[in-house]
Every structure is written in C-alpha cells, then in structure tokens.
C-alpha cells in the first residue's frame, strides 16, 4: 500500500519536475554522479576524523586526569607523611602539661608553633597545621582556639580509613577559607581521649593540580565516591552532588558522552586511591565539535562550489546534448505534420550528428518516395484513364448502338432491351463512381456485360464462360477495369483472328493472399518468339518500341504492379494454333472500395 502511494507520489513529482525531459534527466544524473560519491567520501572522512578526534581527546583527557589523580595521591601521601609522628618530645611534654592544667607551657607551645610555621613554609598550600586535643583546644599555626570536639570526632570516624587517615571537608576553616583537612591520630592518647594531627589544605592546591584548560566551557572537578563535589572551578558547586554522578544501576561517573542537547559533555575520569576521590574532566561536546567546524565549513564550501560547477556543467552538457535532439524533435514534428522541407545542419561527428545525417537522409528518401508515389499515382490514373478511354472507343459504341438499332428495326426489342441494359451496366461499372477498386463481383459482372455485348456484335462467333472457383473472392476487391482488356485481347487477338468459333473462359480462384484470374481462349495463339517478346516487355526486360505496343496488356500489367508490386501482373502462356492464357495475379484486397 505504502509502496504504491510512494510510486504515485514519485510519478507526480517526476511529472511536476518534468524529469521526463532529457535535459532534466541529464542534470539529475550529473548531480547524482558528482555529489553522491563526494557526499559519501565527505561523510566517511568526517566520521573517521570525528572518531579519531574523540579517540585523541579521550586519550589525552585520560592521561591528564590520571596524572592529576597521581598528583593528588602524591600530594596527600606527602601530607600524610607530614602528619606521621611516632613520638614528638615537645608535643608529648605539652600533652602532659595540658592534662595537668599546667600553663607553664611556653617552651613547648612556642616550639610547636615554630615547627608548624616551618612546615607551612615547606608546604605553602597547607593553610593550617594543628593538634586537636580532647578538651577541644586546637593548637595550630593560627595559635590556640577551641573547636567542637564531638562534632569533629563524628566526622572523623565517618570518614576514617583503615590506616586511620581521614579527609574531611570541604568546609570553611577558622579564617573562612575553603579547605579539606587530612586528619591522623597522634599515637599518644591521653586519659581524656585521642589527640589528632591535622593539615588543612587550601582548595587552591586542588585547583592548581586540576588547572588544565579544556576549551571555553570545559573544566575539571574532583568528587568523592558519593558524587559530592570536593573541588570545582565554580565555587558554588563545591559540596553539592555532581549532576554527572549516576546513582542508578551504575554507580559513579561514567566515561564518555553525558547529557543531551546543549548540555552534552564528554567525561573522562580517574580515581585517586589515596584520597578515594575521582578526578573528572568535563569537555563541552559542542566545543569538541567546534574543532571540526573549519573542516565542516570547508566541506560545505567545496560542496557548494562543486554543486554550482556541476549544475553549470550539467546545464552546459545537457544543453549541448539536448539542443540537437530538441532540434531534431522539432524537425521530426514538422515532418510528421507533412512539412518535408525540413533539414538539419548537424555539427561535429558524434552520434547525434550522425542521427541528424540519417534524419536528413530519411527525409530525402521520404521526399523521393513521396515523389515516386505521386508519380506512380499519376501513372496509375493515367493508365486507368487510358484503360477507360480504351473501353469507350467510338466504334465500340457506334457498333453497339447500330446493333441495338438493327435489333429494334428487326423488332427484336427484347434483345435490344438486354443489349441496352448490358451496355448501360458496362459503362456504369466502367466508371464505378470513380472508385479505384471495385468488388471482384462487379468486375466479373462488368466483363460479363462486355462479353455479352461483344458476343452480339460479333454474331456469336465465340462462347464464353466465367468460372469463379472460390466464390469468396467475389467479395474481395480488385482495381477496376483489369479484366476487360484481357478479355478484349482474347476476343480480338485470339478468337476473331482464328476465323472460327471459339470459347473464352474466365477463371477466378484464390491462392493464399493472392487472387488469380485466367482468361483463356482457344483462338489462334501466339508465336513463341512473340510470346517471349510480350512477356519480356511485361517484365520490363525489353524496352518498348512505341507507346502503343501491347498497350492493353501493359496497362493491366503496369497497374497491377504499381498497386501490388513487381511480382504481380500479367503473364501470357500460349501455344500457337491452340490458344492463349493470360494469367493475372493480384493481391486479394479486403474491405471498402479504395479510392
């Protein structure tokens, strides 16, 4: 159903777009031939380049984030080493003093402050180094202040790993700076509880580790294993749940394209085992695509140029090819409308030029054939007229009329009436209303009238019979006045010259598509040499000596050949003293009278 609808739609489209014209077909063909391979090549190249680019981006991003994850690990291992103290004399002494509420602690506090300060100089990204006591005192590089020890302890135990190290944050520290804090227990617990060493790391350190420019919109961020953002270039994102974190069947960040539409990004991740964080690089998919835009632009430009060039070339070629064809078509139409004066002027020697030459040749041939046909028609008319003229010879008419008068004078009115009727039929059938062909039955009737008249004229010197062996030929058609001259020859050159009674037999039959009439007389016959001469004249082998030579036979023969072809016509057979047979072969014509 759909296919038929499509076909209908296509047909309408084709009709509307006039795709049936050679010019349109050529243009479309050229366009398809030029653009299809180019488009396929372009698409293939684009896809190949895009895949390559994605691979390179992925590789590069993976290398970058892996390096960053390693840097994070190394940095936090350094910090962990900084916090690893098996035994510190000053700290141990201070712990004792704190436990005893002894405030003569200047020596140890000052030394610890110096140590912390020196360590900070070594690690400038460390915002604060501190010792957290169970009483909530925090001795740090900022001095001494108090914290909520219980809350700190809860955070620590929630995040502590097997080795006792925990990374807390990000949060705002004493100086309202956003930091993450690495905490490690000091292995000298007091009676009141654990003592912890901590290092607060400025997020600027994470920023410096992840400071890689990923285009205009790309960036790096760091998140923990619950998707909470530890560091993000946009400070407001810190502490929130990353939108890229998948919390369904898949847990965590997934490498590759994430998001849709204008918020589509290419993610690459690497995990830092020491911190338990994931470094995520986010590249804007649009920007990745932007690298291909120059190629796209060039491709579009080339396609446009090729398109214009192809259209122009196709237009030129189709014009060059279709113009002579169109011209030929116009000339053919004119020729089909009887204007045979057309003539094409072929240029070049290509197939179309040859077609033009052939066309010209064909037109010339048609002109020749037309002329020949006209000539033949004229000849045919002339022969018909001559044949008709021959039938209404004055002495034939006078003699017949005299015969009628004689019979009237002899009161043979009935015979005279038959004769008048026969003569009238004879002339009526001779004229045949101007028809070129007449039914064979009419022609036979015409001959019968003629024989009847001639028999009366010549006093019954001969008999005649008409034998139509195949009666169906009577309904066929025959050029008019073909049989009468043969009968006339049989009377005058066969029977009458023999000086005795004779018989004239007319036979008609059908052989295949042809109709054969034989006019046979048993008169004087013809000498063989003359018979040969007559037949040679009829076959066109021998030229005529004069126009009147064998006029009647030639007239019949010529008219038959003009109408039906050279294999038709009249052939004589004769035996001297025995008689002659004139055989007329014509094609059986069907249907209405031919004018």
């Amino acid at each position, binding site marked *: 159903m759909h296919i038929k609808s499509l076909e209908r739609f296509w047909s309408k489209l084709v009709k509307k777009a006039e795709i049936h014209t050679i010019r349109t077909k050529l243009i479309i063909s050229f366009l398809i031939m030029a653009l299809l391979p180019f488009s396929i090549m372009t698409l293939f190249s684009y896809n190949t380049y895009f895949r390559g680019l994605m691979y390179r981006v992925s590789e590069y991003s993976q290398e970058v984030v892996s390096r960053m994850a390693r840097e994070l690990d190394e940095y936090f291992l350094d910090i962990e080493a900084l916090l690893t103290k098996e035994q510190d004399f*000053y700290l141990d002494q201070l712990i004792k003093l704190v436990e005893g*509420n002894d*405030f*003569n*602690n*200047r*020596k*140890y*506090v*000052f*030394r610890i*402050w*110096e140590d*912390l*300060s020196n360590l*900070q100089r070594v690690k400038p990204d460390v915002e604060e180094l501190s010792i957290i006591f169970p009483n909530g005192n925090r001795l740090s*590089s*900022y*001095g*001494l*202040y*108090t914290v909520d020890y219980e809350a700190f302890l809860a955070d620590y135990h929630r995040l502590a790993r097997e080795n006792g190290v925990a990374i807390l944050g990000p949060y705002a520290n*004493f*100086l*309202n700076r956003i930091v993450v804090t690495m905490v490690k227990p000091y292995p000298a617990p007091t009676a009141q509880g654990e003592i912890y060493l901590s290092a607060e790391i400025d997020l600027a350190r994470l920023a410096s580790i992840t400071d890689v420019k990923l285009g205009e919109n790309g960036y790096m961020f760091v998140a923990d294993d619950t998707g909470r953002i530890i560091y993000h270039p946009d400070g407001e994102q810190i502490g929130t749940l990353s939108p890229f974190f998948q919390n369904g069947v898949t847990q965590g960040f997934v490498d590759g394209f994430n998001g849709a539409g204008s918020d589509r990004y290419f993610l690459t991740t690497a995990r830092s085992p020491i911190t338990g964080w994931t470094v995520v690089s986010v590249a804007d998919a649009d920007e990745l695509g932007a690298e291909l835009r120059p190629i796209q632009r060039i491709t579009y430009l080339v396609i446009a140029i090729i398109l214009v060039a192809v259209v122009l070339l196709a237009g030129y070629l189709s014009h060059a090819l279709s113009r002579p064809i169109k011209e030929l078509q116009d000339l053919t139409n004119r020729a089909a409308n009887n204007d045979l004066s057309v003539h094409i002027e072929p240029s070049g020697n290509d197939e179309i030029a040859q077609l033009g030459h052939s066309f010209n040749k064909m037109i010339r041939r048609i002109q020749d054939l037309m002329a020949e046909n006209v000539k033949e028609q004229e000849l045919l008319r002339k022969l018909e007229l001559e044949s008709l003229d021959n039938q209404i010879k004055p002495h034939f008419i006078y003699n017949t009329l005299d015969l009628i008068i004689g019979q009237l004078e002899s009161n043979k009115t009935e015979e005279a009436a038959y004769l008048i009727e026969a003569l009238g039929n004879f002339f009526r059938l001779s004229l045949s209303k101007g028809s070129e062909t007449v039914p064979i039955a009419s022609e036979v009737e015409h001959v019968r009238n003629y024989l009847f008249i001639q028999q009366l004229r010549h006093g019954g010197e001969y008999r005649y019979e008409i034998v139509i062996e195949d009666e169906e030929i009577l309904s066929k058609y025959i050029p008019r006045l073909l049989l009468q001259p043969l009968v006339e020859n049989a009377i005058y050159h066969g029977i009458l010259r023999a000086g005795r009674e004779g018989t004239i037999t007319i036979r008609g039959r059908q052989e295949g598509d042809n109709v054969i009439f034989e006019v046979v007389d048993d008169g004087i016959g013809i000498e063989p040499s003359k018979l040969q001469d007559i037949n040679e004249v009829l076959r066109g082998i021998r030229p005529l000596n004069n126009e009147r030579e064998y006029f009647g036979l030639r007239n019949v023969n010529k008219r038959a050949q003009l109408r039906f072809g050279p294999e038709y016509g009249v052939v004589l057979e004769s035996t001297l003293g025995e008689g002659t047979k004139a055989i007329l072969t014509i094609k059986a014509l069907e249907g209405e009278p031919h004018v």
Partner: protein
Amino acid sequence: MPKKSPVFTTALPIVVALLVVSSLALGAEREEPLTIAVLPRALGNPIFLDAFEAAQKKAHELGVRLEWVAPFDFSSEAQVEMIENLIRRGVDGILASVNDDEAIHRVFQKARAQGIAVATFDGDSPGSGRLFHIGIDNYRAGYAIGQALVGVLQERGLAEKELDTMIMTGLREAFHHEERIRGFLAATEGQVNLKVRDIVENEDTVEKSIILLEDYVRHNPDIEVIFFVGGWPFYVPSEALPNFQRWAQAGGIAVGIDLFYDALLLQKEGLIQYLIGQDMSTMGSLGLELLVNYIRYGHVPPNFVEVGLEHANESNIDRLLEIHKPWLVK
C-alpha cells in the same frame, strides 16, 4: 470578698512555672563559657609568651575559653583578617596588641557593632573606640630609656660628644613604637649629642631584626649608639650575633625596651647597657580579667591601665635573671 476568677486561678501557676523555667534556661545560657580572643602582634614574637601563660591561667581561673590567635609572622593584614573571622565566629571579647593603628579601626568598629567587647594591650589604637588599653605609657617608657642612656653616656664621659645613633623599630606605623621613639628623643634632647643616622624597621619580626642588626653593624661599624625600640634581636644567644658582639665589645652602646630572660643574659654579658621592660604577664592576665568583668558584670575599666616599667641595670641583673623564665628548651 470577691470571688476569684477560675481563669486567674488556673493561669497563675502556669505563668509562675513559665517564669521559673525561663529563668533556669537563662541561667543555663549564662553558664556557657565566654570566649575571649587575645591577639598578640605575632605568634613568633616571644615577648608575648609571658602574657600567653598568664592569660591561660587567668582564663582557667575565670572559666572562660581563651583563643590566642595571630599570624606567626607580623602582618597587619593577617591580623585584620583574623579579627574579621573572630567576629564571624561570634567571640565575646577581643583583646589585641594592634599592629596597624589605622587598619584596625574598621574591624574594631564592626566588632563593637556586633556587641563584641574590644580592648587593646601592648600596642594601642586610641582612635579605634576600644574599651580600654592595658600596657605601658610608651612615651614614658621611651623617655625612661632615654634618661637611662643619658646616664650611661655621662658615666662614660661621652655626654658632649656627637654620637652616631641607629634606632631599630618594628614599624613606623605602630603607634606604641613611635611613642617610644618620641619619648627617647625628648629625653636625650639637650642632654647628650645624638645624631640619629638611621631608623631601621624590622617589621616586628625576630628573624629579620637579627639579620638587619648583624648586617647594619657590619656595614656601619662606626655607629656608636643603638636604641632598640623593642627586644626583637635579643631572643638568641650572643653567639648568634657575632657582629653585634664585636661591635659592643669595641665600645658600642646599646639600650632597649623589653625585658626578658635572653635579653637579660646579653646584658649580663655586657652587650647591652640598659633595658627597660614592660610587665607582659599583667597585661595578659589583668587585661583578660578586666574584659571578662566588663562582659559579665558591666564593670567599665579605666580607659588606660598602666602596668608599670621594670629597669635592668648592673645592680639588679642577677635578681631579674632569677625571676624571668627562659622560653627556649635548653
């Protein structure tokens, strides 16, 4: 006798109960210890250690939380930033040794606007609207050390001689340092013939003061008198000051303000001729106490609480070495 309303008889006990509960709750709030932040000029300046220890003891005694915070090295900006964050943390009182008189005004006003009591010790900021200042009269301290120098020079017969003098101070912007210099110059004016060739700023840091001093005396061995506005370079043993040691042994005369164990040792070695000190312990303990009393009870202290001066000369040096404690672990 009119009949009491049932509403009155029902509501009265409820109101009484609510008042009792409210007063208990308020009492509970009052039991929350006060948090008092004390800011020395720098953690790394040992002069404040006396005050630190005294303040801890007093805080424990008074039942308040003590926060002793400062940048390790002197920094006016860092001090201001710390006060900003103390305000954010909502401490109850601030006692600060001011680094930069001008710079501190804005944050002090901000603190006062949030109901935080603000006072100063050691380094004052008179125009900041602070509640009180505890310390010494720095002009008088400068004047006293000037008079002491005049005595030393007269004793050595140098009162008439023009003497090339260098003054080492912390910061020119520090009000108390400038006051000391002003007092010193006033006391020596007309009494001796000092020609102040340079005033060297050490940014209130011990390390820098040592470097600057050693460098200065090496390049200016002919300098004859040095006045130390504070005791920064004296926190190290004499071996750490070889150039100064040679200069002093060659007849250089040094006097200074700030009196502590290591400075006294240098004086005993003869490298310093006279020291005048301030009572940092009293500043720490009394300053904290006055602030707490103001917050708790509304006791308004005097605008200036003077802690007095201590003189160190040949006559009392041994006794003072017994009183003052070292700060380095030896």
